[in-house]
C-alpha cells in the first residue's frame, strides 16, 4: 500500500479554485518533486496535505487512514511534517526553542536537537540566537530541522531554496541528499527544474491546479516538463495560460 495517497483533491481559496482534482500516490522512501509555475497550486496542495487548508472535495490518505477531517497538529503526530514556504519560523524564539517545538507532537523517533545540529553544523554557534537574527540559510536549516524533530514519515518541503544564494542552496541540498539516501519519504516543491529532476525519483508538473505531467524523473525530458510547465502540450484547446 502507498504511504500517502491524494485522491481527487480540490482546494479553494474563496472563489479561486487553487487545486482542481489532483490525485497521486507516493511510496515509502520515494522522493517526489512538484514543479510548476507560480500559482499552479503546489503550495496549496502541500498545505492541504499538512492540514493547513481544508479541501472542498477529495481525500488524503496516510497508510490507508483518512486524514481529511484531522487538524494539522494531529497530522504531525501521525507523521506528516511541512517545511512551509518562507520558513515561517517563530522569530522571537531561539533556534533551540524552534527545534524543540517540533517535538510537541511526541512522535517517537531518533531526531534530537544534537542530531539536527550535526546535520546543519552552521547552526551550532547560533543555538541560542533568536531566529529573527539568522541569515536566510540558517533560517532554512532551522525550519527543516524543526520539521525533522517531529520524526516525520513524510516530509513536505516547500521551496526550500527560495531567497537563498546558490551556494547556500547547494549546502541545504547536500544535507537533504543525506535524508533522501536514508530513505525518508519526501515531497518537495522546487523552482529549479534541473535540481528537482536530479534529487527526485518521480516528478509531477502542475498547471492551473491540475497535474499536467507525471513520470519518473530519469525518464522525462526537460523539454517535456517545460511544455507541461507552460501548458504547451494541450494541443487544440487554444487556451494560453496567463
Amino acid at each position, binding site marked *: 500500500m502507498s504511504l500517502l495517497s491524494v485522491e481527487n483533491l480540490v482546494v479553494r481559496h474563496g472563489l479561486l479554485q487553487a487545486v482542481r482534482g489532483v490525485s497521486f500516490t507516493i511510496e515509502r522512501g520515494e522522493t517526489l518533486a512538484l514543479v510548476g509555475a507560480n500559482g499552479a497550486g503546489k503550495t496549496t496542495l502541500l498545505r492541504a496535505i499538512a492540514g493547513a487548508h481544508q479541501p472542498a472535495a477529495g481525500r488524503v490518505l496516510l497508510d490507508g487512514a483518512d486524514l481529511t477531517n484531522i487538524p494539522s497538529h494531529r497530522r504531525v503526530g501521525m507523521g506528516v511534517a511541512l517545511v512551509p514556504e518562507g520558513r*515561517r519560523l517563530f522569530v*522571537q524564539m531561539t533556534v533551540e526553542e524552534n527545534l524543540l*517545538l517540533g517535538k*510537541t507532537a511526541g512522535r517517537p523517533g531518533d531526531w534530537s536537537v544534537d542530531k539536527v545540529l550535526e546535520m546543519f553544523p552552521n547552526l551550532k554557534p547560533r543555538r541560542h540566537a533568536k531566529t529573527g537574527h539568522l541569515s536566510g540559510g540558517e533560517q532554512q536549516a532551522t525550519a527543516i530541522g524543526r520539521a525533522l524533530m517531529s520524526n516525520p514519515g513524510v516530509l513536505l518541503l516547500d521551496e526550500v531554496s527560495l531567497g537563498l544564494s546558490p551556494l547556500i542552496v547547494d549546502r541545504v541540498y547536500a544535507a537533504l541528499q543525506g535524508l533522501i539516501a536514508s530513505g525518508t519519504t519526501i515531497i518537495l516543491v522546487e523552482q529549479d527544474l534541473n535540481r528537482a529532476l536530479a534529487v527526485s525519483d518521480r516528478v509531477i508538473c502542475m498547471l492551473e491546479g491540475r497535474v499536467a505531467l507525471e513520470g519518473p524523473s530519469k525518464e522525462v525530458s526537460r523539454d517535456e516538463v517545460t511544455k507541461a510547465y507552460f501548458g504547451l502540450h494541450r494541443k487544440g484547446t487554444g487556451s494560453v495560460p496567463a
Partner: protein
Amino acid sequence: MSNQIIQGILLGGYYALIACGLSFMFSVMRIINLAHGSLAVFAAYALWLLASRFHVSPFAGLLIVLPLMAAIGWALQRFLLERSARGGALLPILTTFGLAIVIDNLLFEQFGADTRSLAPYIGSLSYDSWEWPGNIYVGKLAVIMFATAVVLLGGLQLFLTRTRLGRSIRATSEDPDTAGLVGVDARRANAIAAAIAMVTVGLAGAFLGMRATFDPYAGAPQLLFAFEAAVIGGAGSLWGTLIGGIVLALAQTLGAQVHPQGFLIGGHAVFLVVLFVRLSASGLGVRGLLRLGRTS
C-alpha cells in the same frame, strides 16, 4: 521621603499583580480583556462569600476560587473569545466590554451596593506591620503582595521559556497557523493561557479584597490601574509589568505628597507621559497623531 518611596514600591506590587493577567493575555493571545477588573472583583466576591457564609479563610478559599477562575478562563476562551476573534480584532474587545457590564450588574443584583472587604477575615494581617531600620513601618500584607507579584511574574517567565507548554503558548501567540503545522494544538494552548491569566486575576482579586474594600462596580478602576501599569511597563513584557506597577504607584504616592487630591492625577500624568514618549519613539509623535486626525 524614603518611607514614601518604599510604600510606593510595595503598592507597585499590587498593581503589578493586577496588571499581570492583562499583560499576559495581551502578549500571548493578542486580546485586550476589558472584563479584567470585573473578573478580579468577581473573585473577591467569591472569596468573601466563602469567608462570610462558610467561614473559610480567604487564603484557604483561594484553593477553591483559583481553580474556579481557571475554569472560567478556559470557558471564556473556548466559548466567547475564540468565537468573537473570528469576527476580527475589534470584536473580542467589544465582547469583553459587554462581559464586564454583565458581570458588574450580576454582582450588583446578587450582593447589592454594600461595600465589602476581606480584611475582617484575615485576622491581624490587615493592619500588622514590620519595623524596618530608619523607623519605617511596612505593612505585612503589602510585603506579601509584593513578594507574590515577584514570584508570580518570575514563575510565569520561567514557565513560558523553560517548559514545553510555555513554548507552545508562545509559538501560538506568534503564529497560530504555523504552530499547528509543527504539532501544537493552538486552541488548547490559547485555552490554557486564558486559564492561567484568570488564575492571576483571582490572586489579584484576593489581594484587592484584603487590602481595601470593593463593591460590584469596583472593576473599572482596577482595570484602569492594570492598564496603566501594563502600558508604562511596556504591554506584553512580564518584568516590565512589575516596573510599570512600581512606577505607577510611586507616581501616585508622590502625587499625593504634592496635593491631597494628587494621588490619581499623579498616576494618570505619568501614564500619559510614558504613552506619548512611546508613541514619539515609535515614530508617531504628537504631530503625527494630529496629522492622522486631519487626514482621516
